[in-house]
């Protein structure tokens, strides 16, 4: 049996475990990633804008999972490149697929934690009532929906220095969230800004979340197709960035 294939499952599990432990022991990641979106939802979704708890659960949870993905990939990879961790993994027979999968699963687990915390708040304080299948669908869609943001974060992490990564990723993250209508519904935007929002990936992830919770019956097929197209584009950027590493001394 091929050596690489024989060791692959164990390596994948270890990489997933290592990524999750690493993130969970990094307060600079866990606190803002978990607490900020939940706090924002509590203030804006429940206290300041009453009556829209279910709608804002979907949009603020999208905001949360997007951050978990961008930061776990973008900043972490930029730092790991600079520290030599990525190079050490490349020198060892670490499966690159496992390295990426480990980060993806860790980001998904944090995404699920964010959705769970917000769901508890939404049900407990916001009076949101969903069928069990809808709660599960919300968690599933948002966890899987981290994929394009993980890939975007990875593409940025492969290009940025560790000092530039936090700033650039915040510059990408916050405007993208706002322009996608995650804080203020896109329906309240001017028409031209609304047209911009409808081409952004967070807008479509929120649309999927709204669809599966029965909050708004959007065109889920179109939203899924847009997210898939973004995922392919970002994956190509990752592949390009990864190949670039082969030609430089990183």
């Amino acid at each position: 049996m091929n050596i690489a294939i024989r060791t692959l499952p164990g390596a994948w599990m270890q990489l997933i475990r290592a990524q999750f432990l690493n993130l969970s022991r990094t307060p600079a990641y866990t606190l803002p990633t978990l607490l900020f979106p939940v706090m924002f939802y509590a203030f804006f979704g429940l206290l300041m804008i009453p009556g829209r708890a279910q709608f804002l659960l979907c949009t603020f949870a999208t905001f949360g999972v997007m951050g978990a993905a961008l930061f776990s990939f973008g900043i972490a990879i930029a730092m790991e490149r600079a520290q030599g961790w990525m190079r050490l993994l490349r020198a060892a027979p670490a499966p690159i697929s496992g390295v990426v999968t480990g980060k993806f699963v860790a980001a998904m687990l944090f995404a699920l934690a964010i959705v769970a915390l917000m769901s508890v708040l939404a049900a407990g304080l916001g009076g949101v009532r969903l069928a069990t299948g809808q709660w599960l669908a919300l968690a599933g869609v948002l966890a899987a929906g981290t994929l394009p943001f993980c890939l975007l974060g990875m593409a940025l992490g492969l290009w940025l220095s560790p000092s530039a990564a936090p700033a650039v990723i915040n510059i990408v993250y916050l405007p993208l969230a706002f322009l996608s209508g995650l804080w203020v519904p896109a329906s309240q935007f001017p028409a031209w800004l609304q047209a911009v929002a409808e081409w952004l990936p967070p807008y479509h992830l929120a649309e999927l979340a709204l669809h599966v919770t029965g909050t708004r019956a959007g065109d889920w097929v179109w939203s899924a197709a847009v997210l898939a197209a973004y995922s392919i584009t970002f994956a190509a950027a990752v592949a390009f960035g990864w190949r670039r590493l082969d030609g430089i001394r990183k």
Partner: protein
Amino acid sequence: MSSQPIATCRGLAHRYGSTDALSGVDLDLPAGAVTALLGPNGAGKTTLIHLLLGLLPLRQGTIRLFGDRAPGANGARSRIGAMLQISGVQDNLTVRELVELFASFYPDPAEVADLVEECGLAGLEGRRFDRLSGGQKQRTLFALAAVGRPGLLVLDEPTTGLDPAARRRLWSAIEARRARGDAILLSTHFMEEADRLADRVVVLDGGRVLARGTPAEIRRRVPRDTIRVRSRLGAERLSALPGVVKVRDGSEGWTLLSGNGVATTRALLEADPDAAELEVRGADLETAFLALTGDAPTDDGVRPGCAVREDHPSLEERETA
């Protein structure tokens, strides 16, 4: 020692922009032997190591690992352990978690408990990497390199920053690996380390091989002794003594560098029977290295390389000739 090379490199060359990092380098790494790679900063050591590990694309030359494997191929990578010069790890993982992670990459890894014991990490398994001392961190990185029972161990300046005791512990671990039959490539700035560990030494400078051989052969490439003495003879007369290539005056007397310490000493005592505090020291590997690279002054301020290299071409130059 087996004569079968684990790795064979021929005609390696690599450029960064317009800078030649390596030019026509050949290297064999036999099983059960430590090959030390010496050279000043920028000599091309790390580039050579990165080519060997498949971390840089091989544009010129050939590398064959374990017979017919190319660098970076899975069949080669799973038999190589690497300890790189800048090797940050996810430093909030514990020693055990890191070792188990790396063990999972290899088809036949070492027992974690045995490896931890062998690398002097017993009792530290549950400690996070960022809470280890410098020596413990280096030993952990060594354990990550060794956990796959590699046939080839590549160590890029593994003892930099370690205190003497920590360095010696790591040396013992390296010696144990050699005794098991691993081929070991050791890049180092420490001549004492190369002298103690290396079966063969390759001296690189400016991307080229200046010399290669056993440590003793390298020392013999620079047949120079250092003679320290208090003497009434002046610099002119001392310079005229047989074999002397450099004379330096100092607060502790004269320092002579000689290509023939015996002849110089004999002539010195004939010319000045009252010469006192005479000390004759043979060339060590560091002296030889400095002479070959001509890149740094000795501790007494003498730049030894120029005069010697003019008279004594490097082994590589001799081989070429």
